[in-house]
């Protein structure tokens, strides 16, 4: 339960060890590089932008090749494979594969080149198909379009735009040139063009063509000197040839799939080197030495120091952080609570000087989540699924793993509350026994059934709320005490505790509470008087002390009164916990609706089928929607009500310089 203490580590070493030291730091992955030194004439940074961008380009090329491989030779991925996380490989295997990194780079280049070639071939096919299409209307013609004619006769092939019949062409020809003899054959006719040939005597050819032109005749744009049908069959042959070439290319690419693992390593390798060069570019370097400086968690610093000084000639200096320095935040929690770190991150990491509330939050989170979902069967399902996934994918990504752990515990808590409130798929046991076995059996609640006594649960919800909020206020007190701000502790925490506790003691025996809760609570007179005085003293204290920062008495009192008005904020915060009841009821009632609907088929084979169908679909839906609801509203109770009392967040996460791989992690040899 803590924010890890950070230190600044500065390393000064000889340039000849630069590569080795940087790689060592990167593979240890515990230091965030952060330089505070300005460049001067002795120490200057190197420009590594070019090298970096070439590495990044290489990584991108390998990534792209991998994507193409996935396209041509897909590896089946199940829906859950995104949970699987990265593989773990031995350093030896990694190194041995990467020895051939130039060849692998060539493979990546080849895959990309082949893909390009394939795309070009596809474009070629399209082009041929277009020519075939433009040829299609001339297919019935059994001489080439460029046919010169015989000794006396000339053939004029061409088109008219629009649909014509033979008669209409003849009649238009007759209008234009009544004394010319022509023989017209329509080859094909479409909606917007008519394709035909005109035969005429060689000596009148010129006049005939002029006459034809005047009615809109146009020669074909492409003149092919072979019979159209032959040309088409040739083109089709070419298409099938190109297609088989494409098939071969595809086969060739799939054949390269054996290099998939190598390419993954290659992409990672260049990515890691790119990161290294980014850091290298930040290092101040003199003629023969260089400096590295950055944040490191205290518990790691000795290890790193030893690893470096044992092996290289260097000076490692570890110091505490300066007062004004804002260190990056790394959390450390026990196994149970670390699950909730993701939730805290979503709100904001602890800022400088704040405690890490994860431990407190995790217990309340699990407790409240279970109360909202509150169905034993749903809880068992959630826990079971999370546990199964955790076991099946041991190398799940860290943050995902933590969430899974959290929801595993939330599921157990749900199970617990389900048993307390007798929710097993809602009232499924009752409905099944009543519908299919004739007499109703139910599992009695360990505590009580909220549907029968909602007021009781409402009271308990608010009670849990008060506890939750008081813990929040207590944490605020803890922080004031730790920082030795005793006056703040007394004014902002103790006085509020007094006021709130006093008000509670006064409220509990009142008639209003008795009528709502149905139980009369009677305190001895001394306790009642104590409550009264606590409330009065607390209120007066807050009124006087809240504005202690200002000298002006009137302003000070006004600020105090304003702060006292926060009592309404406390009221609304406590009322907000009524959602524990409402969401619990929502799960139960919707589950009952599902069961009711299922049982409408009655006691028959058909009825059983209807019931199973409604049961599976309905409860899946109910579980999904209520999981979402419980998640959202538990978050809200933590973020708004609980954190509102003491926590602001706003810390910066710790980003160590490490091997940021995408496909595989490298197992470090233990020394």
């Amino acid at each position: 339960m803590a924010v890890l203490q950070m230190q600044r580590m500065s390393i000064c070493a000889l340039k000849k060890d630069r590569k080795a030291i940087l790689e060592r730091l990167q593979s240890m992955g515990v230091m965030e590089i952060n330089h505070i030194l300005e460049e001067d004439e002795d120490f200057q940074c190197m420009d590594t932008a070019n090298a970096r961008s070439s590495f990044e380009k290489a990584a991108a090329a390998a990534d792209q090749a991998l994507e193409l491989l996935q396209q041509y030779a897909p590896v089946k991925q199940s829906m859950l494979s995104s949970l699987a996380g990265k593989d773990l490989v031995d350093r030896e295997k990694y190194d041995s594969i990467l020895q051939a990194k130039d060849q692998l780079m060539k493979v990546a280049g080849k895959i990309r080149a082949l893909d390009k070639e394939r795309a070009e071939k596809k474009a070629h096919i399209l082009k041929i198909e277009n020519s075939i299409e433009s040829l299609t209307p001339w297919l019935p013609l059994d001489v080439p379009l460029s046919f010169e004619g015989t000794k006396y006769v000339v053939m004029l092939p061409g088109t008219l735009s629009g649909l014509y019949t033979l008669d209409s062409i003849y009649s238009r020809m007759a209008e234009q040139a009544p004394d010319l003899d022509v023989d017209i054959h329509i080859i094909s006719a479409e909606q917007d063009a008519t394709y035909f040939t005109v035969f005429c005597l060689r000596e009148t050819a010129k006049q005939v063509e002029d006459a034809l032109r005047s009615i809109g005749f146009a020669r074909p744009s492409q003149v092919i000197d072979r019979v159209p049908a032959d040309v088409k069959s040739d083109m089709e042959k070419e298409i099938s040839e190109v297609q088989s070439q494409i098939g071969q290319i595809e086969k060739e690419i799939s054949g390269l799939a054996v290099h998939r693992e190598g390419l993954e390593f290659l992409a990672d390798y260049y990515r890691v080197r790119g990161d290294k060069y980014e850091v290298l570019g930040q290092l101040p370097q003199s003629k023969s030495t260089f400096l590295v400086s950055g944040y490191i968690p205290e518990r790691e610093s000795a290890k790193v120091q030893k690893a470096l000084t044992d092996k290289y000639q260097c000076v490692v200096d570890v110091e505490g952080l300066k007062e004004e320095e804002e260190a990056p935040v790394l959390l450390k929690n026990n196994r149970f609570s670390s699950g909730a770190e993701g939730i805290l991150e979503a709100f904001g990491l602890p800022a400088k000087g704040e405690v890490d509330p994860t431990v407190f939050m995790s217990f309340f989170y699990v407790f409240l989540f279970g109360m909202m979902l509150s169905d034993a069967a749903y809880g068992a399902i959630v826990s079971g699924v999370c546990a199964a996934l955790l076991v099946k994918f041991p190398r799940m990504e860290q943050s995902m793993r933590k969430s899974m752990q959290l929801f595993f515990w939330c599921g157990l808590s749900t199970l617990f509350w389900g048993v307390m409130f007798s929710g097993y798929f809602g009232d499924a046991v009752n409905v099944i026994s009543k519908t299919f076995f004739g007499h109703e059996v139910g599992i009695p609640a360990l505590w009580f059934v909220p549907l029968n006594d909602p007021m009781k649960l409402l009271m308990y919800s608010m009670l849990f709320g008060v506890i939750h909020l008081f813990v929040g206020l207590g944490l605020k007190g803890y922080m004031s005490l730790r920082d030795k701000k005793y006056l703040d502790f007394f004014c902002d925490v103790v006085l509020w505790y007094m006021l709130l506790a006093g008000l509670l003691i006064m409220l509990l025996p009142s008639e209003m509470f008795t009528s709502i809760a149905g139980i009369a609570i009677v305190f001895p007179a001394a306790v009642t008087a104590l409550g009264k005085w606590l409330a009065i003293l607390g209120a007066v204290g807050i009124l006087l002390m809240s504005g202690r920062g200002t000298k002006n008495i009137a302003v000070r009192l006004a600020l105090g009164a304003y702060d006292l008005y926060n009592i309404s904020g406390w009221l609304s915060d406590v009322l907000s916990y009524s959602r524990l009841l409402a969401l619990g009821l929502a799960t139960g009632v919707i589950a009952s609706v599902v069961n009711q609907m299922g049982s409408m088929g009655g006691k028959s084979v058909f009825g059983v089928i209807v019931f199973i169908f409604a049961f599976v679909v309905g409860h899946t839906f109910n579980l999904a929607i209520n999981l979402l609801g419980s998640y959202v509203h538990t978050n809200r109770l933590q973020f708004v009500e609980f954190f509102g009392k003491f926590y602001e967040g706003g810390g910066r996460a710790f980003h160590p310089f490490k091997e940021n791989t995408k496909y595989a992690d490298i197992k470090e040899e233990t020394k």
Partner: protein
Amino acid sequence: MSQLGIVYALMGAAVAVFLAGAGSALGVGIAGQAASGVVSEDPSKFAKVLILQLLPGTQGLYGLIIGFVTLSKIGLLGGGVVDVSVQTGLLILAACLPIGIVGLISGTSQGKTAASAIGIIAKKPDQFGKAMLFPAMVETYAILALLISFLAVSAIQV
């Protein structure tokens, strides 16, 4: 005249289901439009925006809960219809109003808030936790209304 009681009671159930359901339908619709816009740019955000789109859907469920509790109260589900006096019928109708009306209004505004939260996801997908909180704020009031409707309906003696 005493038959009118059951009519009023059923009207209550209907009001709860139809107003709250309409609110959710409007809200989910508004959020869905924004969600489709984001997914058209970046399909990988589908899961996140889907969750945000679903948030205004709960009002409809709350309406359903009150409707269901009312129906089982007046015995319309089990078959044995209870004899409901006009006064009791009107009481049930009044008890159903909070979730109906608040469901309608909060569902719509939660939809608008969810649509803006989807805008957060479009620009800063890592801020999902915060984006989710804004629509959840609106929902609080639907929960309060559900609570009052539920307590009122279950407190009415038939």
